[in-house]
């Protein structure tokens, strides 16, 4: 039975990948590109040491983003606000870290806690609006994303938080080397794998433990499966909503840190602001399971990094965004089709068993 469940949970992403690869091939053919050359060039570049390093680094970011989304998903909460939560968290972390002159371990702990706190606080607004005022978190988090962008541009452009970090780029003061987590160049001699990779693995393990081995996790999953049943068994749904949103926001706060502490050392106006949306896609691909999410994050990061090479073949790298969109839509559709078939076959087997009983009676 378990094997069968594993197979059914793998079949949908497999179909999704197959169909979207085929659709991508059709797109490539229709613009007159050579599909085999393109895919093999993506593969060749994507498996080079440098690309593997870049891929792991990007996957670290995506993994955290998808974890944040999936904590909410487990309870049927849509945290569309990961973008806002992580950009504010990263900014706060950059400001705090740049003013610290402490041993590395302490400095990094303080930085992480700052980012988590700010991310959670920003998500907390949406949580409060939902439980106290009945506002859908989908809309409130979208609005909060826009507000976060405004706050950041104000702080960096018009206050002393921002300085001219390089020509025509305003950003926060640089974090001293003691506060950075640059990582190790163990795959490619010239590019470092972010040190935050290890921390994000711990976050993933923590996520698994919290959801599967604690009372809180049980309540959370129960509420997600059936809110009314959970309420009857004594779970306070408002408290669960607030805690879940805060946790989701806290993890979301971390999303920018691998890049901040491993690469830029400063939050400037060119800091990527769209890593939250891809988290939604990856959480879906990974079915809210930390291992699945890790695989999904690596896969999407592979697409992103290796598509950078396609410019040489005359194909815009945006083909990777198209593929991601296709994958999401095909995967959710195939999940639904597989689920319907499962329900149908269960109904049939029940009917068969009942029919037998009637005959023997």
């Amino acid at each position, binding site marked *: 039975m378990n094997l069968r469940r594993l197979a059914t949970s793998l079949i949908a992403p497999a179909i999704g990948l197959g169909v979207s690869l085929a659709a991508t091939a059709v797109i490539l053919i229709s*613009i007159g590109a050579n599909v085999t050359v393109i895919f093999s060039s993506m593969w060749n570049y994507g498996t080079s040491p440098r690309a593997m390093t870049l891929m792991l680094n990007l996957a670290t970011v995506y993994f955290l983003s998808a974890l944040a989304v999936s904590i909410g998903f487990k309870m049927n909460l*849509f945290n*569309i606000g990961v973008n806002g939560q992580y950009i504010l968290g990263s900014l706060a972390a950059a400001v705090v870290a740049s003013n610290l002159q402490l041993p590395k371990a302490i400095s990094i702990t303080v930085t992480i806690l700052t980012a988590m706190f700010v991310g959670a606080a920003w998500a907390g607004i949406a949580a409060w*609006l939902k439980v106290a*005022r*009945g*506002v859908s978190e*989908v*809309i*409130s988090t*979208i*609005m*909060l994303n*826009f*507000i976060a962008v*405004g*706050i950041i*541009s*104000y702080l960096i*452009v*018009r206050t002393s938080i921002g300085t001219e970090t390089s020509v025509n780029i305003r950003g926060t003061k640089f974090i001293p080397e003691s506060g950075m987590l640059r990582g190790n160049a163990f795959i490619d001699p010239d590019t470092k794998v972010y040190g935050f990779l290890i921390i994000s693995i711990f976050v993933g393990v923590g996520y698994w433990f919290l959801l599967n081995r604690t009372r809180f996790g049980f309540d959370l999953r129960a509420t997600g499966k059936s809110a009314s049943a959970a309420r009857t068994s004594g779970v306070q749904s408002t408290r669960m909503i607030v805690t879940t949103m805060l946790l989701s926001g806290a993890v979301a706060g971390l999303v920018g840190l691998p890049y901040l502490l491993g690469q830029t050392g400063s939050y400037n106006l060119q800091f990527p602001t769209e890593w939250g*949306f891809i988290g*939604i*896609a990856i959480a*879906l691909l990974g079915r809210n399971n930390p291992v699945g999410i890790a695989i999904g994050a690596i896969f999407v990061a592979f697409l992103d990094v290796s598509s950078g090479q396609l410019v040489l073949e005359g194909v*815009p790298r*945006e*083909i*990777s*965004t*198209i*593929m*991601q*969109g*296709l994958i*999401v*839509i095909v995967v*959710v*559709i195939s*999940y*639904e*089709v597989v689920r319907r078939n499962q329900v149908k076959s269960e109904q049939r087997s029940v009917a068969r068993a009942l029919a037998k009983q009637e005959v023997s009676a």
Partner: protein
Amino acid sequence: MTYLKSHRFIGSAFTAITMLSITRTITSNGDLTSTVTIAQALVFASPIALAGLAGIWAERAGVINIGLEGMMILGTFGAGWAGWQWGAWAGVLAGIIFGAIGGLLLAVAAVTFGVDQIIAGTAINLLALGTTKFLAILLFTNAPGGGQAQSPPIKGKIPVFTLDSIVEPLTALHEKGIFFVSDLAGLVAGLFYNMSLLTIITLLLFIMTSYLLWKTAFGLRLRSAGENPWAADSLGVKVVQYKYAAVVFSGMLAGLGGAYLSIASTIYRNGNTAGRGYIGLATMIFGDWRPGGTAAGAIMFGYIDTLRLIDTGNQNVKGLILLGAIILFTIGAWMLRSSRRNTAIGFLLLGAVMIGAYFSATSFPPEVAQVAPYITTLLVLATASQNLRPPAADGVPYRKGEDH
């Protein structure tokens, strides 16, 4: 407000003009109600209004449309691509068709396969973003006047009307600075100054929607698919067909909104929508899933955007703060009479804070105006969400013969 009750409409218009007029008089900033400001506000408001209207169509039939942003992006692209080659009207048509393709995709995923509508919408946003950027590089890079991220200029124009015989005397009257009269003159003159035919079409679409959805059997059936599709089905309504029609039309409207943006800036540009699809969604909620309120929300966004962007003396945002405070005081005072004391006191306090800010600072950064519409939306949702009523089966997947 199913249909505009005329006395209510006149009452609220009167209140709005009075509040604007008080603000204009205190700040002595004529820009707040000038002809140019109003005309520009309508240009900014229309695409958002179309996105909001698109949201109404989809959600009234029970399909949440987070994909509005993506459908709008498709519309901006279609308009740039076709408009550059065959003229502005071809651009509008292509924008509508591209938007409809986005709508059809959502309908297939959400109606036929019954997948989660928010996820399907998010996927469409991702797809639209990738596809348009991808095609822009392929189609526009080597085109004369185009680039990797923008199309060549759109050929020809959509007619724009200015009625000098009305605008000139009214603008002169506006410059006299008489309380209420001058402001009303500016507002009216704005309606006849650089009025695009597309804006008029937008207005007609709003009127058509109010009529079709609330006054005809077609509309009743469509809305019944969003309120209780199982009951509708039992009465013989072809729920799936209605949902398809609504969602595809929603895509067409969002595409038209995108085309409007491209036509207004004469080119397609990557990122030209800048989240307006999401804002349209907000105006729809703001307007309680009805055309009148949605239009009002869109005009608010357009007005604030305009004042921020034409802010020469750095005083417009300050004016907006005062206007916000006056609005909060008015609503707060009105609410005090009803039973909602806590909300009323909250509004009055917030209004007082804004008055304090107004008198203590000489100017405000434009970022305040940048975030003001979003904060306003959150405030409206926080105070009115108990009174808002989305369609009962909004977002619920429907399959014929399966009860929920």
